[in-house]
């Protein structure tokens, strides 16, 4: 091992026309982590558009009191499918997609630990998602009632029992999500095994990129908390098909048990969803500030702490079900504790920028949007954790606004930052920065216009999941403004779609390292060859490419 040449020699891509069937076969049969990662991300984006259309109809219905755009049944299906889709068919595949594409590249590996398991995970996820949507056309079942699920994304018992949910709609929800969950578990085990066993020489855990660290903790959480959801869904299906009584209150079963099982999964789940955004910010902010991540050990500690604490906070979704004062106090306290490591992360990202030279390109803009919006989300989260305050806020539009601030203002903004950042790596071409800025500003204005007013609607007593409301309760103006905001959001998303379609073909050629990055994925070609690296790299610090670019002042001297 006398020398290693960076950037690695890249092979000449053979220019040959592939027929459509050859191309299709090569994608369907692939076990390449990059292709699977892209397929995850693309299918998540398609589901994102579908869920967005549903959200648009929801906002159209609620724009004015006594709305008549859709009827109650359709509306209930819309918000159920919107929530289920966003969580299980957008958020989860984004976790899998980003970690699949980037983890092997960042740790200098040629593929994931289990490439075939990886392909299995993707296809089973897609099958689960399509099965869920099949409910729209095939859901009537033999009994001729029902279509898409209409029980809400957390499907509280006993609304899901045969007595209150006839037909097959709830079964589609349970089976579709259960099956998609297997895919998530498969992909999470794969990420863990990959980071544990496939790191290139010299990449100790302390030198692993922050992105990989966050995805590792994320995968740990998936492995631990997805099975409780599966268990709950199995019980639900036993109830519905075999007549078991798990959630049958008539037979002494408990409606609260479902809530416990669901939220043991459900609360860690929202952290699972937001972690990819944390991961992306931890890569994009340093590169665009031209400084290393501030307080790396604290950032690793914080992410692990969030992972741990998030497993002990689930019942803060249940402050109003009548738990004892002691339980309510415990879960309120635990929920507030999450704020501490989350605060550390926000402070450290800010400190990373402090003293840097901020390149305000689109990826960083989305990160900055994330920081400010996630700050709001975190603080409204603290309000919800204060149990007595939550008795008022719970299940109101304030909660809706809060979690859209975390998941749209936070997660989706973070994911867009990631897409602008790594698009050149995946396609070899840059996304247009000009269109990107339009995308950012339109989405940012539209998002805030929609969701800031909804906080106030909630404070004025508007409960969530209502398909209509009467005039005269002070909710009209807030709802109207919120619905107008949607128009800006749609415009922003259209900019993004157009940007992707245009840039994939005619964008500016990116080269290997358009952002002057520091992690290993920038050391190979764009797009990377199937085997990623011709020679496995050797690293001595958490910023191997910094070391190469600044041989007089490398990072490893300070470790």
């Amino acid at each position: 091992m006398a020398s290693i040449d960076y950037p690695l020699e890249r092979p000449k891509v053979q220019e040959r026309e592939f027929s459509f069937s050859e191309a299709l076969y090569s994608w369907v049969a692939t076990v390449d982590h990059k292709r699977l990662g892209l397929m995850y991300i693309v299918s998540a984006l398609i589901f994102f558009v579908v869920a967005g259309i549903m959200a648009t109809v929801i906002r159209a219905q609620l724009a004015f009191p006594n709305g008549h755009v859709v009827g109650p049944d359709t509306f209930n299906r819309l918000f159920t499918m919107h929530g289920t889709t966003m969580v299980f068919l957008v958020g989860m595949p984004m976790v899998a997609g980003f970690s699949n594409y980037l983890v092997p590249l960042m740790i200098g590996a040629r593929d994931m630990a289990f490439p075939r398991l990886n392909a299995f995970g993707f296809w089973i996820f897609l099958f689960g998602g399509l099965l869920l949507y099949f409910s729209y056309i095939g859901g009537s079942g033999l009994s001729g009632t029902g279509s898409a699920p209409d029980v809400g994304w957390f499907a509280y018992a006993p609304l899901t029992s045969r007595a209150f949910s006839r037909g097959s709609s709830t079964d589609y929800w349970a089976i579709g999500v259960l099956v998609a969950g297997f895919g998530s578990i498969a992909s999470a085990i794969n990420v863990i095994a990959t980071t544990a066993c496939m790191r290139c020489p010299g990449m100790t855990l302390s030198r692993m990129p922050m992105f990989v660290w966050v995805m590792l903790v994320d995968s740990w959480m998936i492995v631990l908390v997805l099975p409780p959801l599966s268990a709950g869904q199995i019980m639900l299906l036993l109830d519905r098909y075999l007549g078991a009584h798990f959630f049958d209150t008539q037979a002494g079963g408990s409606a609260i048990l479902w809530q416990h099982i669901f939220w043991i999964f459900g609360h860690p789940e929202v952290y699972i969803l937001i972690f990819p955004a944390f991961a992306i910010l931890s890569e994009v902010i340093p590169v665009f500030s031209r400084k290393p991540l501030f307080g790396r050990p604290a950032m690793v500690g914080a992410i692990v702490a969030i992972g741990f604490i998030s497993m002990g906070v689930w019942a803060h979704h249940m402050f109003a079900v009548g738990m004892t004062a002691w339980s309510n106090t415990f879960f309120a306290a635990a929920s507030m504790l999450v704020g501490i490591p989350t605060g550390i992360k926000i402070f450290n990202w800010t400190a990373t920028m402090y003293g840097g030279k901020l390149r305000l390109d689109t990826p960083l803009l989305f990160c900055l949007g994330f920081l400010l919006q996630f700050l709001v989300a975190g603080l409204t989260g603290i309000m919800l954790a204060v149990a007595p305050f939550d008795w008022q806020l719970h299940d109101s539009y304030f909660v809706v606004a809060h979690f859209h601030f975390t998941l749209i203002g936070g997660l989706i903004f973070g994911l867009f930052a990631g897409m602008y950042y790594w698009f050149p790596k995946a396609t070899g071409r840059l996304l247009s920065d000009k269109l990107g800025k339009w995308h950012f500003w339109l989405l940012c204005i539209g998002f805030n216009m929609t969701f800031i007013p909804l906080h106030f609607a909630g404070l004025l007593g508007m409960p969530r999941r209502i398909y209509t409301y009467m005039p005269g309760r002070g909710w009209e103006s807030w709802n109207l403004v919120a619905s107008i905001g949607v128009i800006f959001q749609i415009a922003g998303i259209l900019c993004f779609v157009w940007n992707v379609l245009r840039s994939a073909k005619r964008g500016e050629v990116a080269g290997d390292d358009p952002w002057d990055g520091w992690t290993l994925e920038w050391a190979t070609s764009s797009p990377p060859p199937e085997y990623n690296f011709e020679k496995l790299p050797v690293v001595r610090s958490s910023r191997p490419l910094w070391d190469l670019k600044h041989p007089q002042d490398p990072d490893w001297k300070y470790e």
Partner: protein
Amino acid sequence: MHALFVLLLQVQVPGVPEKRITNIFKPLAGPASEEKTIAVLTLAITGVIFVVVGALITYTIWRFRRKPGDDSQQEPPQVYGSNQIEVAWTVIPILIVFVLIGVSARVIASVENASPPKSMLKATIIGHQWWWEVHYPDYGIATANEIHVPVAGKEKTATYLQLQSQDVIHSFWVPQLAGKWDLVPNRTNYMWIDPQEPGVYLGNCAEYCGTQHANMLLRVIAQPKAEFQAWAASEQKPAVDNPQLTGAKAAFESLSCINCHTIKGTRALGKFGPDLTHLMSRQTLAAGMLTNTRDNLRAWVDDPQAIKPGSLMPSFKLNDKELDQVVAYLESLK
């Protein structure tokens, strides 16, 4: 911050007196007041954090943005971290969190563990898809959707609500009186309210409970003690038996209405729908959807599905004569 919130919330809406907008920052009962106090404290603390951190982030962005003419080759000093600073911004949030935990614990205990005062009224609320069944066990009264309670007054009378559900989970939420509390099947929850002023307090079911969750509306009617007693005395009586309406009553009793509805003192003993004994003493129909007028009542009896699609009351396709008789009879139930 609090001032800002209050300012933003003072949007006057015609129809409902400003005081009756279900604003959680305008509490008119004990639990809601305690919750408002802690809400204001929380808002103040989080507001300060928002301003400080938001300003810090904004300043950082502004101060360190790359300006035209910057030497792009020159990298800024590489700073890896600072233990002192990191300890500081770990310890301060810890202190804030402990303050909030302490305050929360106190309010949780005071609302949940409050011992019932001597002068109290008991009411049982049973949630149904999509209406509220209301019982006053001490008075033997059954009614629906509108909960009459005495105003707290000098004796500090409170009403204790025993919450149950007949089918799925519902949630009792009248924002100006108290935070929400769930009605869970196979379980009994308790909460209390003590309205400070007479009047109508609006609320909703706050837990998604199926098709017509949106129209499971709720009103609490607070009355001075004497007025409440008068109302209760009138409700305790059996249904009015107007001799002029014998035909209409017979027509009603011959229809399937009686399978689901109770009218005390008649053959109608159904338990599935709301008790109609004193239907005309209520302000609304269909769980708060309609004002209780003759036209609305007729339209509702004629075709409930047209008004509240999915409602468990079917349309019986009554002909005009039957409809007139049923409505005439129901209208007599003062």
